[in-house]
């Protein structure tokens, strides 16, 4: 099947048809449970075989060269089809495009294909216990030793560390240089004996977080992307992809609002003015979001890259999502804190999503940081000091 990337509506039809015949009837087991990892990897391979992995990658690297509007269409259809969660997000969405942007031809040849085919999985090695919002203060040290680097330090909040084959990491190669100037972006093998992974339990019981200790881990010199000392600008490219443009995510939030409406009706509260007020506010917020991300996607297609609007998108959806689940819990009242719900319209993972909405205001750059970026880059306000 070919997917016409130049015509959004034709693209939508073909993707929808493909998803209809390929999305499994039953949800896959979660990634962190037995067989879950392989089930998700198999799904990634199905997408790859259909030519749908790396939609936005240039055709020469195996992608479809799709613009932002097409990517948005894909995301909308994907969410609407209840398709499985993506396992290969960090590879396809972050390190792949980063290598395309900053890598050498040899690096593109070595790394891109196994990302597309989901044969190699990735985790992100940025944050450290002492370097959260202040990412540039990372302390993980990489010392040149012959034709490799010896790397030691600790990375934290690393999703998928237990399954990843590789970590893309920001490390300090020159402690004498300026804070931002002595950093390097390097690809590290997760099977090195010097790597110790300790799981971190989150308060909502969601697995997948870990602390990764590196003790004299070796990475060959050719695993440095963008050149030694250029790590900060390479990492910023990666982060701009992480922040994303909120493509297609509005479908999820619109469905969440539908859930709220069904819940209000099921509870017999649909005539309550306070409830109606909250529901209409949530609805308007999601409609505004939809219009905004579509506009941002169109603009990004013109300029060719995600702009600082990504900060607005991230700020907006994370706060909107918190309000959506706050409204849900308010509606449910005392029943809200029951872990099992007798109401058909309540999703089984309601509490997990409520908690995760809180985390959304912190990860991928805290909302405070996003506001600073918006102030500087979009409003032209002076740098905070």
């Amino acid at each position: 099947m070919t997917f016409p990337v130049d015509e959004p509506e034709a693209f939508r039809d073909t993707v929808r048809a493909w998803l209809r015949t390929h999305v499994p009837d039953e949800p896959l087991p979660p990634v962190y449970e037995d067989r879950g990892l392989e089930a998700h990897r198999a799904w990634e391979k199905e997408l790859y075989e259909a030519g749908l992995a790396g939609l936005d990658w240039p055709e020469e690297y195996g992608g479809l060269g799709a613009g932002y509007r097409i990517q948005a269409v894909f995301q909308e259809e994907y969410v609407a089809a209840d398709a499985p969660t993506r396992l290969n997000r960090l590879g396809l969405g972050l390190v792949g495009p980063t290598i395309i942007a900053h890598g050498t031809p040899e690096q593109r040849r070595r790394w891109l294909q196994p990302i597309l085919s989901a044969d190699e999985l990735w985790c992100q090695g940025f944050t450290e216990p002492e370097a959260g919002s202040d990412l540039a203060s990372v302390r993980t040290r990489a010392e040149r030793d012959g034709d490799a680097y010896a790397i030691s330090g600790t990375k934290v909040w690393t999703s998928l560390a237990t399954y990843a084959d590789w970590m893309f990491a920001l490390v300090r190669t020159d402690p004498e240089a300026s804070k931002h100037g002595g950093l390097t972006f390097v690809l590290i093998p997760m099977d090195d004996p010097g790597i110790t992974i300790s799981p971190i339990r989150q308060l909502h019981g969601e697995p997948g977080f870990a602390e990764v200790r590196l003790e004299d881990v070796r990475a060959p010199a050719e695993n440095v992307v963008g050149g030694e000392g250029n790590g900060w600008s390479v990492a910023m490219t990666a982060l701009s992809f992480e922040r994303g443009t909120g493509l297609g995510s509005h479908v999820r939030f619109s469905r969440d609002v539908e859930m709220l409406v069904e819940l209000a009706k099921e509870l017999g509260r649909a005539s309550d003015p306070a409830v109606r007020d909250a529901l209409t506010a949530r609805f308007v917020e999601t409609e505004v979001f939809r219009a905004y991300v579509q506009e941002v996607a169109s603009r990004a297609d013109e300029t060719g890259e995600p702009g600082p609007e990504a900060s607005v998108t991230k700020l907006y959806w994370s706060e909107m999502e918190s309000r959506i689940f706050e409204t849900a819990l308010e509606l449910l009242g005392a029943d809200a804190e029951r872990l099992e719900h007798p109401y058909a319209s309540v999703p089984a993972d309601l509490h997990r999503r409520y908690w995760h909405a809180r985390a959304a205001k912190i990860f991928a750059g805290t909302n405070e940081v996003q506001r600073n970026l918006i102030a500087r880059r979009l409003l032209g306000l002076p740098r905070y000091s």
Partner: protein
Amino acid sequence: MSGTERELLVETVEGLLHGAGFGDPPTEGAAQQAWKLFAEYGLTLVGVPEDRNGSGGTFEDASAVVRVVAAEAGPGAFAEALLVAQPFQMRTGWVPSDAPVTFADGTWRLDRDSAGFTLSGHARRVPWARVAERIVMPASDDAGQRYLVEVPTSELDVVHGTNVADEPRDDVAAEGVILRDGRVREIDDRHPAADVEMWGARARSVQISGALGAVLEMTVRYAGERVQFGRPIARFQAVQQHIAALAGEVVAARAAVSAAVTDDGEIDPVSTAAAKIRAGIAASNAAALAHQVHGAIGFTQEHRLHRLTRRLWSWREEFGNELYWSRRLGEWIVERGADGLWPLITSTSRSVVP
């Protein structure tokens, strides 16, 4: 109790809980241990007069104990015992013991025959039922007469459940249970058990205000210790704003709750509704702000923050959330009419609601 006596009481409770070092989630064993410890110090009978086998002190003193337990995320039904079950027992003329007790607001029917009383019915989500030795509940008979009943837990069926903070919330049931070792007393509409919901709401408000204080303290400390960009994050205006807003919530909630906590424990419906509403709003806002300031580390199981925020989230829902009490309070206000509004807001004496 004087100011210094109250301080000593608070310090004693804090000291006991710190010393015991109870973990998370709150277990049955921990709750039993906590109760035993408190009983040794007479703390489970604060608010019960000395001539009734108690430790003396007022309802306000009992609230102080409950507030500290909440601030320390301590295990056990202290709020339910000190602020609801025991006041009910005392007003029924019963002498409370120092055995763990809770109350079960549900649908209970009492039948009487030559053999004695038979209890049937159920209550959902009874706080700490599995740890209580005795359970207090309001019941009715077929003629509509109301009773306060106190029953050993061993005579009832208990099915375990929890709230979002992993505190026990057990379903309790009885099917034609002949009361052997229970107490039964006829009550009327003036008995506090007629308004279990308000007593429960007030107890939760007290707990919320305790937990709020602890959350604020934890957040201020964290912001002063966590260094990023070369300075404690407390030096960033955005963080200061969050902390200031958080402090505002704590103070407002405390003020509302202390208006509802009377010396003799009598319920003022308007203050109680207002306290539950304001405490509930504060619980949501303060928890969100605290988590935002703590960043990722506040999201881990290991860090203490969630022990408090999950309790805040649970307690704001129990015994009616803000939506529920706002509606009731609104109805009372509307029924008094426009002329009744100003006196309601400004009066310092107890309100009477229609």
